[in-house]
């Protein structure tokens, strides 16, 4: 992630549903946690611990990395993690084939839409 990292749109998300993100970091003293932006709305979040947000993944969004003090070697265990729960269109609108599990020979056991709903 560069300084203004990877702003993007989640094209395969359902347009009417929301993604949820929760952020948590293990950062040393003096490190900044970084930001999360929803660019087209002009809002941002400071990614402090236990912060969570619902947002529409079809709006352009991105983030910046945690920052350590200039001129100092970065501490190896300085990490931020986020969990994103999101709504891929084909899963939430019932048109996708779902992978139920693995089969031999690198195959997947797939449930097609007609096996899941009668619509």
């Amino acid at each position: 992630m560069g300084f203004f990292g990877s702003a993007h749109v989640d094209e395969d998300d359902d347009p009417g549903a929301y993604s949820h993100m929760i952020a948590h970091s293990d950062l040393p003293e003096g490190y900044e946690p970084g930001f999360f932006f929803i660019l087209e709305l002009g809002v941002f979040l400071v990614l402090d611990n236990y912060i969570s947000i619902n947002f529409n993944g079809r709006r352009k969004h991105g983030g910046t990395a945690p920052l350590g003090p200039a001129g100092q070697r970065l501490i190896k265990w300085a990490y931020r993690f986020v969990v994103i729960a999101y709504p891929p269109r084909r899963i939430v609108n019932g048109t996708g084939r779902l992978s139920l599990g693995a089969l031999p020979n690198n195959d997947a056991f797939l449930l097609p839409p007609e096996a899941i709903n009668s619509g």
Partner: protein
Amino acid sequence: MAAMEETTPEIAERLKERAELVNMPRIGSDDNWAYGTFQLNLATAKNKRGESVEFRGSPHHRMSL
């Protein structure tokens, strides 16, 4: 989901109805009517001038469920 029920209940209702209608798989909990999948992102820290001292190239790792 609790936040959506609280602040945008009409949207929450629509999403719940649709999940029922299409028999959406409930990942992680039967109460999950909103999220079809999950992803974990890990990001390492960078120095303030924008370069990572420890890691070059791909500065973060991603795992999908």
